[in-house]
């Protein structure tokens, strides 16, 4: 199996007033085609920098980022993005928001086809009937659903998500995990998910990558050996519990804290 995303020994530092601030220090990551890679790590460890590297919005100081056998040097049309902030364009309807990437990536596509494609996804995430509403008329969870549709409307090879569910309440978040799982079953894409939520990483991920504290390097990779059509209940069973425990320990190490509990 080939790796769709291949990140090799990436180093990067931001230039600040107090000199260079290293954020990535030997980051490795490989995600096979169609796999879901969840990335966890302490706050401020450079996870968001990772998303900007994979999307080509930023070039690393050293090291290589490969996407589909090509070295990433600039943004490409085969990537979709979703952020914690759903970034809805308030002057457009939900449907028009979802169609936005198509206007850039497939300008020759007819309006009817664009609408059909957008509608297809909106139905998948349960937003049928809301397509002509403005974003301000929707709840946070619904906006995030629309944002997911927009991220994959142009059938990107890679979907990059930077804490997309971070601002939602727990139940809404679990709903969206299941939406995400269903979307993947219907629309195959390779995915990198940045998250702070270990349960989320285990529920959605095929592999979970733990980054060390800043400057980040790949500290630990966990293979999630759960069935693809997992349900939320799985998280309350022993196998997932052990994985969560392992991840928790790794995070503690990443934070530079020793085992202190008795």
């Amino acid at each position, binding site marked *: 199996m080939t790796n769709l995303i291949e990140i090799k020994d990436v180093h990067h530092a931001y230039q600040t007033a107090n000199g260079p601030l290293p954020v990535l220090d030997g980051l490795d990551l490989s995600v096979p085609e169609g796999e879901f890679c969840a990335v966890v790590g302490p706050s401020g460890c450079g996870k968001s920098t990772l998303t*900007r590297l994979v*999307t*080509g*919005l930023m070039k690393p100081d050293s090291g290589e980022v490969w996407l589909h056998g090509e070295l990433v040097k*600039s*943004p*490409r*049309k085969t*990537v979709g*993005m979703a*952020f914690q*902030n759903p*970034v809805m*364009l*308030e*002057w457009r309807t939900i449907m028009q928001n979802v169609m*936005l*990437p198509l*206007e*850039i*990536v497939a300008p020759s596509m007819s309006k009817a086809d664009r609408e059909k494609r957008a509608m297809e996804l909106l139905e998948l995430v349960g937003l049928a009937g809301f397509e002509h509403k*403005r974003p*301000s008329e929707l709840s946070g969870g619904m906006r995030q659903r629309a944002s997911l549709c*927009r991220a994959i409307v*142009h059938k990107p090879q890679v979907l*990059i998500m930077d804490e997309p569910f971070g601002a939602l309440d727990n139940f809404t978040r679990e709903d969206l995990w299941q939406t995400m799982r269903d979307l993947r079953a219907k629309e195959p894409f390779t995915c990198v998910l940045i998250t702070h939520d270990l349960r989320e990483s285990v529920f959605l991920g095929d592999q979970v990558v733990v980054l060390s504290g800043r400057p980040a390097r790949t500290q630990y990779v966990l293979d999630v050996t759960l069935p693809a059509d997992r349900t939320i209940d799985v998280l309350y069973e022993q196998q997932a519990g052990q994985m969560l425990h392992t991840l928790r320990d790794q995070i503690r190490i990443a934070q530079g804290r020793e085992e202190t509990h008795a």
Partner: protein
Amino acid sequence: MRKILTPLIAIVVFLLLWEFIVWVNDWPNYVMASPSDLPEAYARFWKLFLVMGWQTLWRTVVGLLIAVVVGTLIGMIMGFSRTARDALYPLLVGFNAVPKATLVPVIALIFIGQHDFNTVLMAFLISFFPIAVSVGIGLSTLEPEYRDILRALGASKMTIFWKIALPKTLPEFFGALKVAVTLAFIGTNLVEIVSPHGRGLGALFKSGETNANYPLMFAVLIALAVLGILLYYAVVALEKIFAGWAERPQS
């Protein structure tokens, strides 16, 4: 109905109060005109009001249109380039702080006899500042995520501007335009009054002053206020069309 009635009642109350204050103080109309003096002034000079009012109006609107174009351009430059922002801000603020009345003789000397041009120029000079600042701030405070969703797809800067930055800045732009409308009227009348050339409501005001016709002077002021209100609501109507989405439903 309520939307029209409420401001109408407010205007009537204002006029009554004005009439009352003049009446209580027993001011003759060569000290302070009262609303009841105005109909006579309008009846006598209505032709002049139409001609002069039109002259004031078109020059204000043209000045305002130029201010929109130039102000937006300056705003764009300041919004996209930090260097331009650092360079232009002190200049703009300094220029805006100069009392525009002092510029009237300067302009009148540079462009002698070009009265229409001078008037339009002043309307423009006085009103472009808020537009430039608001567009500049709107563009420079665009959240990076908004740019990134298009940039990650390889969209050009121009595409990002048309699809995201410009529409997102529209509410601020219209806010500034409302301020600019009234400023532009001040600019037009400044030239018409300080550098009289027999045109516009400002000139009519001046002739009222020369002839000690106080009711006429007040009638001019009211006419100016009416024009200002008209143009303001024209902007509000445009705002409803182009930036109506920014209005939140009231709860």
